[in-house]
């Protein structure tokens, strides 16, 4: 087991160095190896995931007597018709089931949760509350109003509407700034993780 761990650490560092060589040096056989490793291991993971799921949720219940599952299994196999030009259209049938069910779910959830919950949470008290809360609430209602107005495309952008839309844009910029400021941390998290792995494998930094 220890030999495996040792080998793992060496392979890890070699692959990290290979991956970085694309940026630090130039594209070469080393970076090609790293890239190919990325692609083929990801693909293997995809295949293992698919086989695992088909086994768990198709084959096992089928063997336990749920014969109806033959229909989705057949539809699933039809997806592979796309590799034969003449019969490629069959995959559209299978995708129609996946997309139809998917859109059915998405339509109702986006109306019930995404639209209505967000809308009703924005109906805020501005009277009978402390001044600071009232100010925040007014700001929130205005921000929501301006932002939605920004995306009205069939009214000419003049006069009051134009001003409202400009404020909507400013509010959105604050939002995007917040997203940017947050995203930095998760991006850096990866970067630090890779440096840490590299140092760890070399026996530095614990």
């Amino acid at each position, binding site marked *: 087991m220890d030999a495996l761990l040792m080998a*793992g*650490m060496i392979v*890890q560092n070699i*692959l*990290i160095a290979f991956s970085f060589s694309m940026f630090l040096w130039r594209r070469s*056989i080393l970076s*090609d190896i790293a890239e*190919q490793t990325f*692609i*083929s*291991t*990801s693909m*293997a*993971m*995809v*295949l293992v995931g*698919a*086989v*695992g799921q088909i086994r768990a*949720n198709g084959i096992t219940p089928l063997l336990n007597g749920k014969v109806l599952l033959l229909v989705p299994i057949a539809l*699933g196999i039809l997806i*592979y018709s796309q*590799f034969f030009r003449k019969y490629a*259209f069959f995959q559209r049938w299978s995708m*129609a*089931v*996946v997309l*139809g*069910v998917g*859109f*059915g*779910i*998405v339509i109702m959830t*986006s*109306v019930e949760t995404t*639209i209505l919950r*967000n809308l009703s*949470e924005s109906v805020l008290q501005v009277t009978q509350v402390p001044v600071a809360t009232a100010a*925040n609430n007014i700001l*929130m209602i205005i*921000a*929501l109003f301006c*932002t*939605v107005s920004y*995306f009205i495309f069939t009214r000419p952008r003049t006069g009051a509407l134009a001003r409202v839309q400009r404020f909507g844009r400013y*509010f*959105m*910029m*604050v*939002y995007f*700034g917040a997203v*940017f*400021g*947050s995203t*930095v*941390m998760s*991006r850096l998290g990866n*970067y630090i993780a*890779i440096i840490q*792995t590299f140092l760890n494998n070399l026996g530095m930094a614990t």
Partner: protein
Amino acid sequence: MALATLRSREIVVIILAFCGLAVLADYFVRIPVLRTAVDELKVWAVLIAAFATGVGFFGYARRTIIKTRAREPGWPVLIYGVILAIVMSYFGIFYGVEGTGYSWLFNYVLQSVRTATVALGTPFIFSAALRAFRARNLDAVLFLIAGVLLMLYNAPIGEVIWSGFPVVGQWILDVPQTSVNRALMILTGLGLAAYGIRYIVGFEEMAAER
């Protein structure tokens, strides 16, 4: 010919409309038969989606074969990739994801290359910060100020510099951010709902034909 009939778009539109409207109808009315059917339909969709994810692997295999046959530059690397993929899939499928072989390949090979590749983008953020993030108009000024404040909110150092940074960051998150995010979510939800309705009644399919 029969094949031409099967190929027609109407069949696809009918399947789409049936599945979509059945799921929607079940949501609004309680009919036991419909309910059972929709439950089954949802499980089917999940199972078919599993088959669909496998397509990526075969597409990759086919591309690799074509490239190797054509002896494109770097083809030995492609063969290395195929061998690696086959070995990893073999371990994963026949010895299970809990097996040593698959776990080792996952932990030491896949994890490091994936992280390294994504991490390579990070220095570009820093380079961009120095040379491209310009406060060239009011939009960008607001953007950068909010970004910097949120960075100081997220990183523990912010509180050390000034105890007010967490408060300001929290206010940005709670007030302007939340309401704009709500607005954008409403818009996205509306767009998705409209697109979905158009899709399941076959408008998009029909439009693609033209």
